[in-house]
């Protein structure tokens, strides 16, 4: 089967992998790179469990043709912590019990990371909008929203939205 070499920056590190033509980024990250943090939930852009950040924007890795990230930059949950030091978002997710089964959590974290990068002090409404592409079937949305607001340090603006 035809394979193509691609290079991209993955959580700050250079990666060079061969990808099968037509492969999606989710499969390449999981099987090719060994980054298991993005999850398969639907393969059709409905659930958001596979969300990663490509060149600064949140993207569904299952709907991203892998070779389109050639030369680009891909960030995932695997790059959020520095060693044992969790990111503010990860800390807030822990302290707010913002995960139940944990399967949507990686996608939620990446959508939230993308939001806070562009909008460090979002309103509650903006948080809801930012995670609207991520489904949580354990219905932990409230805890997730609170966690993101806390991580943003915008606790005072919570009710403003």
């Amino acid at each position, binding site marked *: 089967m035809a394979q193509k070499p691609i290079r991209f920056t993955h959580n700050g590190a250079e990666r060079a992998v061969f990808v099968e033509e*037509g492969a999606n980024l989710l499969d390449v990250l999981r099987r090719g790179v060994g980054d298991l943090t993005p999850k398969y939930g639907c*393969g059709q852009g409905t659930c958001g469990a596979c969300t990663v950040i490509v060149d600064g*924007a949140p*993207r569904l890795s*299952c*709907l991203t043709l892998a070779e389109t990230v050639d030369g680009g930059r891909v960030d995932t949950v695997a790059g959020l912590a520095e060693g044992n030091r969790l990111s503010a978002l990860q800390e807030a997710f822990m302290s707010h019990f913002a995960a139940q089964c944990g399967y949507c959590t990686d996608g939620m974290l990446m959508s939230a990371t993308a939001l806070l990068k562009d909008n460090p002090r979002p309103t509650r409404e903006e948080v809801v909008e930012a995670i609207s592409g*991520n489904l949580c079937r354990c219905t932990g949305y409230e805890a997730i929203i609170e966690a993101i607001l806390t991580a943003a340090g915008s606790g005072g603006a919570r009710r403003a939205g």
Partner: protein
Amino acid sequence: MAVTVETYATLAEAQRAMAGGRARFLGGGTILMRALNEADPSISTIVRATDPALRQIRPEGGEIMIGAGVTMAELARHRDTAFLAPVARVIGGPQVRAAATVAGNLFAAAPYGDMAAALLALGATIETADGRRQPIEELMRPSGSGAGGLVAAVRVADPRGAFHFCKVSRVKPKGVSLISIAALLPRPGGRIERPRIVFNGMGPRPVRAAEAERALEGRSLDAAAIAAAARAAAEGFDPPDDALASAWYRREVAGVHLARLLTGIR
């Protein structure tokens, strides 16, 4: 069957690679990648173009030129396309908007295609890879020629406050449209002149509501005119029965939502 992906620097080259009709063009991938993930047997060759011109938005000759590959997120952000931001912002979630393109939306089957409905209401012009221009109606016509090659850009005039849009969905934010309504209502001297009202979700493609337009032509936007347009809204439509809503429901609420949209206009 292995898939082949061909990448070209220009749209013209991509257009040549499309000859023969076997290849599919990759825009943002939100529709094509899903089919690919499902191993759709009709897809064997994928063509893409990296031409930066496809990502441009710029004023040109009194119109706004929107490159075919401009994403919903870019449309929602760009100053020159602020009138389209209310449409772009309600398409998909943030991840979809970061990928989905304006040209891709022109070919998206219902329940998608809200941007196509907006562009149809705005009377946009479609520019193809060979430089030809055609009114968007040509592309949207169910049995129309349509086959003008790859879309290079969409040109649209700033409606200067005369454009209105609403999307009806069960889930907010991010739910798909049961129906959406895009309306261009120029009112020089207070009277509606050549209105363009488009429904998405009332058929396989966005379609103009000719009877509702007729009901508004030449009238001021008052309660009587709105009521007349609402009564005529569903005329001539054969909406689908699907998991989102029944045909009956769509017919019943089409006029209700049109009336709400029109009533909300100051």
